[in-house]
């Protein structure tokens, strides 16, 4: 069964809470029980400030695989979890931005290295989450790893493509440089649980922003596993924070949070985008809209899904003047 038909079979706007497991709980950490050994399951938790807390609500919701089987209970994150995540992001952001571009480049490359090491786990999770075959899942995971490598290379190059020296008509040295916007909220795409998330997250953090990510509501497991990679990749705690839960309970709070500087709503549903954009106005967040052609048809493997101009959506241009004189 393809992920599309699975998603479509749910009533529009229906929550994953309304699903009920067709099969007993299974682990995604491999095949589960082998012979007489009982498998050790993983608890999927939030990722805030470099730690893996459970949601403060103490609540969870069931995550089903594409075939309707129960995969895990994920944290049903809350507004308060978002606040904690924003606080952690705000605290971590200046230090991350202050690292040299070379250093950030190496850290993003390190993420790719560690993802590569967990390649089989990611493939298995994408297969069960998205309901795709091994070949497709392999392409998707490989592309996600390669995407980190690609953005790693931009860390110390994009400022040279978007910065300028401005030949003003006067005796002044004048230049414009990009700086990270600050704390960026990311609404991860619902369907593309891993590649979609990596494609949106990498251009946000490469320049020195910190991110608060709302994972795919129905397919959050690969995202949680990604945070385990981030935690061991020298990405400072708080630079990426990930909340799982129900979008209808979370997106508006992220969009309206007064200490978030930008919102990537590329992964939000088209129906919710206008309300999110309006909520983002309160503190003049930079806002990235969903794709005009619709997210359903968006090809995350296409060349356009990675672009240095995406980095540009989450930077500010600062112009500096100084007189030239003796």
């Amino acid at each position, binding site marked *: 069964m393809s992920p599309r038909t699975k998603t479509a079979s749910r009533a529009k706007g229906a929550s994953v809470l309304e699903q009920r497991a067709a099969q007993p709980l299974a682990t995604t950490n491999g095949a589960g029980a082998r012979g007489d050994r009982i498998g050790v399951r993983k608890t999927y938790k939030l990722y805030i400030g470099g730690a893996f807390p459970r949601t403060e609500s103490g609540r969870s919701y069931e995550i089903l695989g594409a075939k309707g089987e129960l995969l895990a209970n994920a944290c049903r994150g809350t507004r308060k979890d978002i606040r904690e995540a924003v606080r952690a992001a705000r605290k971590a952001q200046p230090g991350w931005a202050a690292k040299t571009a070379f250093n950030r480049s190496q850290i993003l490359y390190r993420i790719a290295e560690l993802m590569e090491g967990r390649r089989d786990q990611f493939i298995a999770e994408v297969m069960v989450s998205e309901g795709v075959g091994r070949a497709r899942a392999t392409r998707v995971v490989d592309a996600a790893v390669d995407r980190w490598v690609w953005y790693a290379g931009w860390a110390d190059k994009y400022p040279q493509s978007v910065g*300028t020296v*401005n*030949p*003003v*008509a*006067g005796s*002044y040295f*004048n230049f*414009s440089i990009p*700086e990270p916007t600050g704390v960026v909220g990311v609404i991860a795409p619902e369907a593309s649980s891993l590649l979609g998330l990596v494609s949106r997250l990498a251009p946000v953090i490469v320049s020195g922003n910190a991110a608060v990510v709302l994972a795919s509501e129905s397919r959050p497991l690969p995202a949680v596993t990604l945070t385990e990679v981030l935690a061991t990749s020298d990405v400072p705690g708080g630079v990426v924070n990930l909340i799982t839960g129900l979008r209808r309970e979370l997106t508006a709070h992220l969009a309206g949070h007064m200490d978030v*500087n930008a919102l990537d709503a*590329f992964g939000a549903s088209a129906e919710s*985008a*206008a*309300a999110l*954009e*309006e909520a*983002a*106005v*309160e*503190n*003049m967040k*930079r*806002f*990235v*809209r*969903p*794709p*005009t052609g619709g997210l359903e048809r968006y090809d995350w493997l296409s060349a*356009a*899904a*990675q*672009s*240095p*101009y*995406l980095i*540009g*959506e989450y930077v*500010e*241009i*600062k*112009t*500096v*003047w*100084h*007189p030239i004189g003796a």
Partner: protein
Amino acid sequence: MTLTKKPETRPAPNSWGLSAGDSPWEYAPAPEATDHIRIEPEYGLFIGNQSVRSKPRKTFTVINPATEEPLARVAHASKADVNRAVAAAHEAHRSSWSKLPGRERAKYLYRIARIMQERSREFAVVESMNSGKPIKESRDVDVPLAAAHFFYYAGWADKLEYAFPNRDPRSLGVAAQVIPWNFPLLMLAWKIAPALAAGNTVVLKPASTTPLTAYLFADVVRQADLPPGVVNIITGPGEIGMELVTHPDVSKVAFTGSTAVGKMIARRLAGSGKKVTLELGGKAANIVFDDAPLDQAIEGIVNGIYFNQGEVCCAGSRLFVQESVYEPLIDKLKARLGTLRVGDPLDKNTDVGAINSAGQLAKVQELVDSGIAEGAEIFQPDCELPTRGFFFRPTLFTGVSQSHRIAQEEIFGPVLSVLTFRTPDEAIEKANNTPYGLSAGVWTEKGSRIFKMVNAMRAGVVWANTFNRFDPTSPFGGYKESGYGREGGIHGLGAYLDLSGNGSNGR
């Protein structure tokens, strides 16, 4: 160190020989001639290269804020007029402007720049009469910069693929542009020049108090033989601006004005898919370290807050002085304020002209009253003000704390709030403690400190050892609640192009 209380007003030290009362030199009146200026009794809307009456016919009076005398009556656009103007722009984009090769668009823009240069004095005088700004500013800053903007963006019109390689840059369509009254012609140029260079057509709404140089610009458009409908200008109150920016056939919105109105516009446009740039309010920190060249800093402070009567979104309205130089700096600053010549905007010696409107004057007065009420100490030079017109003395507040309204709200008038700091980190903390982030200033002789401060300021423009400099090649725009997008330079060009061909999907 204690902050000594100073008397309310006091003369400059005699050694300066500069205070207004006992200045060793007097300035004879030096009025700019106005006999070559022709202001029509009535201006219609400029739609399709024609001056047309609003439907239904309705006008409002535009006055000279320095004399309160009427200058002209201008058309009060209706919703139907907005539709007409957008339709003209839409048709011009479809049938002529978007099909014109970039090199030909460029030549039209070069023509406009040249005609503005040829008619520069006319523009400067009308601008000063209508806005209240001193003639030396309109003559030496506003008008030359406006012409330079057209000249700069003219050169981009046929080079878009080189500006945005691999992005398939395309024009957006009709740009709706709403501009403020503080730099009427310059803001027009900032808006129209990049829009036309990128292949868009425009409908521009100047502020209702300052439409005259826009209508003078309409005459330049006619002289330059632009195809009808490429530039359209309509006048009316804010509601008409809102009709314009929300019009369904508008693809791009550019607004310069207050943060409150900018937010209203952004909310109305949420979900519309229109590309938006907003250049909004500011409350810039101007930070003076103890190793700064004080006399230069004084000039920079004065230029920062009293330039254009302080009616500047990027004005250096919060002065942060390192405590060890507080007293000498304040002494010099007060003395310098005594030498500012306040009065007739058309006098070539005038430094500070008229506030643009009675409403703005009342707003400035209200905030100044709040500063006094909240316990800050006011200083104003003892200068004479004209008996008519909207004038306000250059004002300085000491003993200001971060929580005072005059330290937090944009005053948009010649009012400076002085605060102090001890360490660079304290200066950074205080300077960034505002929802705004348009500009900042730093004064120090130490190079490494300049760059530390430059990096730390959450502001789109940082002037180091200078202030309030502008250039067409230099991107301008804010962080945080000062808006988004940049104007000027290659960054300002991108704001008028559809660059969605490769990845980017922001506003």
